[in-house]
């Protein structure tokens, strides 16, 4: 592994971790609402949340590009605040976050649904408000499932390609992630270097998914 390879590995892990942390609060909120609340139009929200999972990543990337591009509604606003998004590391984080959001929501929702409603009701009779109840009963009891989902999202973020290349480009040292680097190296005919990075991604992905499965297995136990 060269210094350049390590830069790519380090960068990818950092942005994927940041993306995963960023989606944690909204992901848990959405998952909790889906698990515990009923409202008209809930199925629309469910479908919207699942969309990045089934849509071609490039299509998701295009939507993001139109939204946060310099002429897009959000991009224009951020531009006025002096924040560039497209073709920067922020775009990488954004693409990863959007693509891994559904995985977190799905696993966390199942985890929340596994928490007995009776325990939450008892906490209320004991004087707990909804926020305290969430952090002292629901979240701790769902923690293994949530951690499993978090790791799964992280693994998904690590491998993101289609949306990233559209909104963030493939700028060496700035937006090039492992997947983009591997693609680039194959284009350049440097297969041996590509294999090295590929081996590395296999190791990280394997470890992350294995760990995630471990949490999810334990979460299923009573």
């Amino acid at each position, binding site marked *: 592994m060269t210094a350049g390879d390590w830069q790519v590995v380090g960068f990818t892990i950092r942005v994927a971790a940041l993306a995963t942390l960023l989606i944690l609060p909204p992901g848990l909120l959405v998952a909790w609402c889906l698990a515990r609340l009923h409202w008209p139009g809930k199925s629309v929200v469910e479908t919207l949340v699942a969309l990045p999972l089934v849509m071609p990543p490039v299509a998701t990337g295009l939507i993001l590009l139109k939204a946060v591009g310099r002429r897009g509604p959000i991009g224009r606003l951020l531009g006025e605040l002096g924040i*560039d998004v497209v073709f920067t590391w922020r775009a990488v984080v954004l693409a990863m976050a959007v693509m891994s959001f559904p995985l977190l929501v799905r696993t966390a929702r199942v985890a929340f649904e596994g928490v007995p409603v009776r325990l939450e009701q008892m906490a209320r009779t004991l004087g707990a408000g909804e926020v305290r109840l969430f952090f002292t009963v629901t979240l701790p009891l769902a923690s293994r499932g949530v951690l499993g989902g978090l790791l799964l999202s992280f693994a998904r973020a690590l491998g993101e390609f289609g949306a990233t*290349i559209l909104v963030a480009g493939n700028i060496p040292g700035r937006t090039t992630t492992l997947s983009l680097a591997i693609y680039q190296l194959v284009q350049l*005919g440097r297969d041996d270097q590509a294999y090295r990075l590929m081996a590395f991604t296999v190791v990280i992905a394997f470890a992350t998914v294995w760990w995630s499965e471990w949490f999810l297995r334990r979460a299923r136990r009573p």
Partner: protein
Amino acid sequence: MRRRALLTRLLLVTVLLPGPVRAAELSVFAAASLADALGEIAAAYERESGDHAVLNLGASSALARQIQEGAPADLFLSADEEKMNALEKRKLLLPGTRKSVLSNTLVIVVPDDSRLKITGAKDLASPGIRAIALAEPQSVPAGIYAKEYLKKIGIWSKVIDRVVPTENVRAALAAVESGNVDAGVVYKTDAGISKRVKIAYEVPRAEGPVISYPFAVVAGSARPEAARRFLEYLQSPAALAVFRKYGFLVLGG
């Protein structure tokens, strides 16, 4: 017996008849910058010969790589000599068919609503420019030419942090069109097909890099004769006129 005779006759007719009946389908791997001109030429060629050219457009580097990996190409139209050399060295070209046909010019483009004042290539280093799109400068010909030129005028090291490398030259053009970058370095022929960019500066032929587009038939072609015919047609006055119309320069012409 009679049925067999009929079949033989049908076969003979199929082989001997000119035009659509014996049409070949050609797989043409071509540099992205050739897209529009080639589309027009291929359509005209199909009307004339019946042969249908399927265009696989992309960065010459990506296409060369695909051919190396055994992609079913009949013709390769590259935007630089280096990619063609690589294939020739691996004996992947049909000997004697390689010919450098076209040339092009580099231009600096900005979004049509841009208020940037660019009077020369050195202005790319000015502080108002945050992002410059160009084709990937290590492998894609348009990017290699752009880098070569920016190095020659001494601003490459100043602009390298602003460079947004793209998949191919048309993607660089698209990035400028979308307004997501402040400027781009593309071929003059690309700038010509877009209404949403304007040319801020055209690199004079004498100062720019030597750009040439070599064409060749691929060694593994299943239809080498049809491929040769299309290659010849590409150098016919009719085809060259189309290339010129789009702004290409015809070498040796």
